[in-house]
């Protein structure tokens, strides 16, 4: 045979076979119509002889078989009607055995046998037994498989099952089971034997062909699964042990995989649960190449679904200690199958985890146990590089999160972070992101320092540089996303109990300080604010206690805000040292304000000092300086904690720096802003009208200077915006009742602006600003009242 045209040849042979069947079937039909038994038997045997071919692949052979099968149905109808052929069924059963060729003989025998059982002239058991025994004569794998498949097909509705019409004194369900089991065993042997036949080079093709035939074998298990009379006891005592014996002993990879899967799918969950030990006992005995993990996973999936189906079945799981058994079995399988790839191992654990999460959601120790087993397997090995294995680990880690919707639960699992350690850096981070997402989505509050500790251990991939990678290699946007997530996370870590909260803050600080220059700008602010929130809370507590007892009960407040501020000071210091001085400055000011609110003048002063130091030493950019100085002024203005001396020092500094800004307009604006430092519009705020005026005048001088400078450099006068702005300040303080601001001064200023504007007609914006300011003055005048009277004397 030439290999090249093998397929064409096969088509030809199939066509010939079909033609042969049709030819003989034609004569068979004639004989049937004529009620001629002799001729019928003769032509049917000839027709069936077409099935003796060895030339067809299983696929093609199946086509041929189906043709013959259809014809055999007609023959069976004929056999049923004794009146037509006049021969008793008993005699007919002998008569068909006269055929010289075994294959046609056995097909005919099975056909008559089926009629024989139906006639009930002999116990079904005896006929079935005879048929299944006689079929041994066909040892050719494909022909034997199809023959026995035919037997299974014609007998399946005639088994002496419980409640079946074929059940009798002699015929019991035991016989039905024996019959099916025997047919199954023989079919499996034939099927396995296919593997060893023919030359080695076509083995792959043959295995594919074999795979196509597997359902013929599996059909027997389906039949067993449908026998009503197979109760748990019988399943346990007979069916399962015998099927497993066959599966184990056949030592064939394909068969073992398929049949184990078949067993799991075909029989009821309840049976699996009650025979778990037996079933699982078979796994380590399978061939090392069998894909056990898939099969075991399916078993666990089924059992999980079963557990999920009804609450009533759960006690069964406990009673049979399903988890322990599965866990042991997996352990043994992994131990036995040394060559199992790591992805398989983890996949098994994932299944087990899914199982325990569904069946024993309350047993966190089980979950931890599974993770622990996984760690044990993974530890001592280099980090996972296999993509698929990594995915499985992620699945392993994600499952508990999804189940409990609560990271807190996961944090109690001691092995959880150890599993995470096994991931490569990228995946580790991704997993950490998943964890953070879970926390954010569920709005979970992490409320103890221990848990925070564990959590940071889990997400350490985001918190600091891990070995081998530096931040430079990372995508900037990803990095930002990650760090923003961490920042958000920090806000989820709190506890109403100050003592615990303090611990949390310390823990967080400890971790984020190791983050390096790139991360600190992201992570420090949330920590600061979180701590400030605590300080705010602590303050309230102090006040409350004071209200109750009139005195602070020291022990009740575990940490004074002082300590917190010290901590914050260090933290911000770290930030300023990593070239984020502007951010540090803002945070210092924030802290200063908070410290002020806590009545901690020295601390607030210290923070301010730090801010000024930063301003002096680190902030060189003129724009940044402008922003910084305004921030300083704004903060300082709001604070009333300082004593006169300290306040003077600080305001003096602020004013001094304002006047030293590079650009004149900036100077001007900073200086008039400083005026507010001397006039706090509070009940007991400072109200030093003189110094306000000094500032404003100084601002005017600077504005003048600026105007002149423009005139010199550009040959024309500059905009009057600065003047209008100062005018507005005048009006503000005027309204607030600063006695130093007189109507004359305001009037003078208005005049000055008007004059300036005449010499410069280009500035529309300042024009509009000025005219609306003037309109405001007019408005106030016309409105009357106390304020209106004040305004009345302003000349415009």
């Amino acid at each position: 045979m030439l290999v090249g045209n093998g397929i064409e040849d096969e088509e030809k042979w199939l066509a010939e076979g079909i033609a042969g069947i049709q030819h003989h079937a034609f004569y068979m039909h004639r004989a049937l119509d004529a009620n001629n038994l002799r001729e019928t038997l003769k032509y049917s045997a000839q027709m069936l002889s077409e099935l003796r071919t060895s030339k067809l692949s299983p696929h093609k052979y199946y086509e041929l078989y189906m043709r013959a099968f259809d014809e055999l149905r007609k023959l069976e109808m004929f056999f049923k009607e004794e009146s037509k052929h006049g021969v008793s069924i008993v005699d007919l059963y002998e008569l068909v055995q006269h055929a010289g060729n075994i294959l046609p003989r056995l097909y005919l025998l099975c056909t008559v046998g089926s009629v024989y059982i139906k006639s009930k002239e002999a116990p079904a058991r005896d006929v079935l037994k005879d048929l299944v025994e006689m079929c041994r004569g066909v040892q050719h794998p494909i022909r034997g498989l199809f023959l026995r498949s035919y037997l299974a097909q014609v007998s399946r509705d005639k088994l002496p099952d419980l409640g079946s019409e074929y059940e009798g004194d002699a015929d019991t369900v035991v016989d039905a089971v024996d019959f099916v089991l025997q047919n199954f065993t023989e079919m499996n042997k034939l099927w396995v034997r296919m593997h060893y036949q023919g030359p080695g080079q076509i083995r792959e093709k043959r295995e594919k062909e074999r795979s196509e035939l597997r359902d013929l074998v599996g059909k027997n298990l389906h039949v067993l699964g449908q026998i009503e009379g197979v109760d748990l006891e019988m399943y346990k005592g007979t069916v399962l042990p015998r099927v497993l014996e066959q599966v184990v002993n056949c030592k064939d990879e394909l068969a073992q995989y398929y049949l184990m899967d078949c067993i799991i799918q075909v029989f009821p969950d309840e049976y699996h649960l009650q025979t778990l030990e037996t079933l699982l006992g078979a796994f380590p005995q399978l061939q090392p190449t069998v894909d056990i993990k898939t099969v075991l996973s399916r078993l666990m999936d089924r059992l999980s679904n079963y557990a999920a189906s009804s609450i009533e079945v759960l006690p069964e799981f406990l009673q049979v200690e399903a988890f322990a058994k599965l866990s042991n079995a997996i352990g043994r399988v992994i131990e036995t199958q040394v060559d199992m790839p790591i992805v398989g191992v983890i996949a098994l654990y994932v299944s087990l985890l899914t199982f325990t999460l569904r069946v024993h959601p309350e047993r966190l120790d089980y979950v931890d146990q599974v993770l622990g087993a996984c760690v044990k397997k993974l530890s001592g090995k280099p980090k996972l590089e296999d993509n698929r294995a990594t995915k499985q680990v992620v699945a392993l880690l994600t499952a508990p999160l999804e189940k409990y919707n609560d990271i807190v639960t996961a944090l109690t699992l001691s092995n959880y972070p150890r599993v995470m350690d096994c991931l490569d850096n990228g995946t580790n981070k991704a997993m950490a992101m998943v964890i953070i997402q879970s926390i954010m989505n569920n709005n979970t509050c992490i409320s103890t320092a221990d848990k925070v500790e564990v959590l940071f251990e889990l997400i350490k991939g985001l918190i600091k540089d891990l070995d081998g990678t530096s931040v430079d290699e990372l995508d900037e946007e990803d990095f930002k996303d990650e760090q923003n997530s961490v920042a958000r996370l920090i806000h989820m870590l709190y506890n109403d109990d100050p003592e615990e909260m303090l611990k949390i803050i310390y823990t967080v600080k400890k971790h984020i300080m190791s983050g390096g220059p790139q991360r600190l700008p992201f992570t420090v602010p949330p920590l600061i604010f979180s701590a400030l929130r605590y300080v705010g809370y602590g303050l309230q507590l102090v006040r409350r206690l004071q209200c109750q007892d009139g005195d602070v009960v020291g022990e009740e407040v575990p940490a004074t805000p002082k300590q917190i501020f010290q901590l914050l000071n260090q933290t911000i210091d770290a930030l300023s040292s990593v070239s984020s001085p502007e951010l540090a400055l803002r945070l210092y000011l924030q802290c200063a304000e908070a410290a002020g609110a806590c009545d901690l003048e020295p601390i607030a002063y210290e923070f301010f000092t730090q801010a000024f130091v930063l301003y002096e030493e680190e902030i060189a950019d003129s724009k940044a300086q402008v922003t910084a100085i305004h921030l300083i002024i704004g903060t300082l203005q709001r604070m009333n904690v300082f004593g006169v001396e300290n306040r003077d020092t600080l305001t003096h500094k602020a004013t001094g720096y304002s006047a030293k800004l590079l650009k004149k307009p900036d100077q001007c604006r900073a200086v008039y802003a400083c005026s507010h430092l001397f006039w706090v519009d509070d009940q007991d705020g400072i109200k030093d009208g003189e110094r306000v005026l000094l500032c404003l005048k100084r601002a005017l001088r600077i504005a003048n200077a600026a105007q002149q400078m423009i005139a010199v450099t550009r040959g024309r006068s500059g905009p009057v915006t600065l003047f209008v702005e100062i005018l507005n300040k005048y009006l503000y303080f005027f309204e607030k009742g600063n006695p130093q601001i007189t109507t004359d001064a305001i009037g003078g200023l208005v005049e000055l602006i008007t004059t300036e504007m005449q010499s410069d007609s280009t500035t529309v914006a300042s024009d509009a600003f000025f005219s609306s300011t003037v309109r405001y003055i007019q408005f106030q005048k016309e409105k009357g009242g106390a304020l209106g009277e004040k305004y009345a004397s302003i000349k415009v």
Partner: protein
Amino acid sequence: MNFIVGAFKPPCIVSISFADGRTRKQVPLKKENGHTVMVPLFQSQENIVGEVLIEPIHGKKLEHTGVKIELLGQIVRELDVPGELYEKKTYPFEFSTVEMPYESYNGVNVRLRYILKVTISRNYVSNIVEHQDFVVQNYTPLPSINNSIKMEVGIEDCLHIEFEYNKSKYHLKDVILGKIYFLLVRIKIKNMELEIRRRESTGSGPNTYVETETLAKFELMDGGPVRGESIPVRLFLSPYELTPTYRNINNKFSVKYYLNLVLVDEEDRRYFKQQEITVYRLET
């Protein structure tokens, strides 16, 4: 032709009839000319009773020197003294409890026949002779000892089988049951058959002729088994034209039967083992 035939036509019609001819069982018998006729069946020690009818052709006188009937080779009965026959006359005859130990047999090289022969002896002209075949079959009771045939055979390191047939003696409508057990299979077997062979030997000494015929080829197995397989045997004998085993019949011939188990490998090499079985006729 007719008139020539007519000219040599015997002067009378002779016919032999049996007293229980209507009820007696008839069996087919193949004549030498190939035609099959139905003949009555007897067994040993039966009475063979009947009549011989002689009817002279109309208007002719038949002169004879005596009429006799013989069961060929054995017994002669004088039916008439010498005389003349003018009209038809019947002569009853009876051979009582005839010993007929051998069965009729129609083989390749040998036939065993039972014939009634009526001879009308005449002077000067040839005797008038008429033959009537009948068949004898003798029945055997169930053998008291009937062991199974069990044997292990093989080719070293190649094929070892053990076969078992449930009996060594089978009656003609019997069924051979058994099994073939494969102990070692190192060849690729294509199929296995069971043959029934008949061995007829005639003559004796250097003049012995042996004819072997294969009467049945019955496929037992399709495809190659592996070690440990056991293949059932169930062969119904009724469809085949067997006779009982005949051993040294009258020192003239023997007919023996053999079961021949044949294994054919994929290169069409045949491996076989032959076992004699005894076939007998069971009283029904």
